């Protein structure tokens, strides 16, 4: 079975490079990737997760408004009866906030994992394999170094 992963940049953010490379990395790792691209609304994430029967939803944000853009995100998923792992990654804090505070903030919003902008795509792949109980010996990958 191929796991389906929804990918997108939330809010009115137009940073496309990270999500493009993550799409390539996840596809190469064998996931069925639905990349919603930049400027994706909460509704679009929910609709895509439902339509594609997604196994995980990955949210990217680089422009500093992640906190506002993700408010109510998990309530929408709950209302739609969807219970899937949700990850968020990118430049999540505004200004000089402490990273552990930032991570806790987004975990409290309901994200299963929170990644900073220095994360290798391979870390997201590993996390997905762990969280979705995928046998890691199946796929062969070489690590890629990139910020998501």
């Amino acid at each position, binding site marked *: 079975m191929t796991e389906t992963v929804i990918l997108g940049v939330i809010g*009115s953010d*137009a940073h*496309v*490079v990270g999500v*493009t*490379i993550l799409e*390539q*990395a996840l596809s*190469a790792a064998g996931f069925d990737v639905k990349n919603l*691209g*930049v*400027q994706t609304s909460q509704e679009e994430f929910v609709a895509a997760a439902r339509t594609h029967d997604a196994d995980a939803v990955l949210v990217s944000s680089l422009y500093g408004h992640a906190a506002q853009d993700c408010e109510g995100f998990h309530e929408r998923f709950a209302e739609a009866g969807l219970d899937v792992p949700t990850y968020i990654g990118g430049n999540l804090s505004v200004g000089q906030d402490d990273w552990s505070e930032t991570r806790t903030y987004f975990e409290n919003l309901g994200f299963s994992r929170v990644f900073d902008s220095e994360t290798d*795509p391979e870390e997201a792949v590993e996390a997905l394999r762990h969280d979705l109980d995928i046998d890691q010996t199946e796929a062969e990958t*070489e*690590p*890629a*170094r*990139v*910020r998501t």
Partner: protein
Amino acid sequence: MVRNVRLSTEELEAIADDLRDNWPTAEAVDFREAVSYHEDLPDEKRFAEVLESADRPLLQPRAGVPRLDDQVELLTHLHEDGGADLLPTTIDSYTRDNEYEKAQEGLEKARETNDDTLNGFPAVNHGVDRCRELIERVDAPIEVRHGTPDARLLAMITFAGGFQSFEGGPVSYNIPYTKRHDLEETIEHWQFVDRLAGLYTEFGVRINREPFGPLTGTLVPPSIAIAVMLVEGLLAAEQGVRSITLGYGQVGNLVQDVAALRALRSLGEEYLPDEVAVTTVFHEWMGGFPPDEARANGVIGLGGATAAVAKPDKVITKSPQEFQGVPTMEANAAGLRTTRQVIDMMREQHISLDGVDEEQQFVERSTRSLMDTIFACGDGDVANGVVEAFATGKLDVPFAPSDSAAGAVLPARDDDGRVRILEFADLALDDDLKEVHTARLDERAETEGRKRSFRMVADDVDAISDGRLIGRPQEGQS
């Protein structure tokens, strides 16, 4: 179907009348009165004349803050302490989305709290008189720099407000910037902007127009960037614009950057009508910067060195604080001074670089191949052709977020650090040219002992911020 034909004065006036309802400050725009305002401006504030008569590359930073007094202070600092020849006024993001209500809230909040609650100068909200106050209080020509797909009202107000240069274009301010703006509609909107600039030109006020060369700013192959510049130059020229500055963003390989800047100038002069004064602008590295001011200065210095050899008419500088976002005015001025120091030490040296001519020929042949495709897509019409070319992926920009482009082409650096095309998707480049790209990337793959793949792209995107040019596999990683 959009065609590359000049808007009539009746069409221009009808659109302008409609736009007047979009925000109250539009009421103050009076074309004839604005022409006479421009006529009274001193020579040193005439953007096109200053740029076109320069005998060395002019320097210009990026800068925009919400309040007028702060913008005057910022630009004065960049002019006096940074030595900027040309100044910018960068417009805030709400205005770029035509959200004037939100820009107004941000401006009022900025005035109340003294915080910069907008990331630029909301020129529409400030209106004609306050734009003029900015022009009058600063002693250099000022360009409007933004990123607005529908910049019609912004152009009406800033042209009437005394600005004589306006960045952007229907492809360069759409495809790299937004997701849902239809390209055909964006071309119509920019035909208005260009026609308005053309009308001012006919009344003796030569408004300079500058298509945004770096596009997505991330490893854009020169031929793609130059093709977009030529398209936007042709569209602007048709509407009567007579001063056009074509842009290109540094990729970091000295030979390729010099070759591309020369190709940009030569193709610009060839493709654009004779009555257009073509100038070029070089943007210092637009991708990710090192998170270290000392190393960032190295990137900026290489930009200055490239400019000293290639001699573009203008250089848009970066600051050593690029990594962290908007720089302080001191850091912004420092980027200008670093660039100036390198250019002025190098510009009188006669430097010849092996391989520039060959690379220039390659860039030119590739650009011609893309231009032929664009004209063929539109049965000879460049406006319709560029829409069709993007819709079919025959023309494409790497990492383009727009629904109007495929965004499927992927670049990677070759073994020499020049940007080549790894994934063509449907890009309509001649086969013999494609073979060169592939062969060069194979050389790199062999050097690195790995396959040609997106991992090179991923590594290359971060290489400069990591302290290198080419994203080679690192020790300790398998």
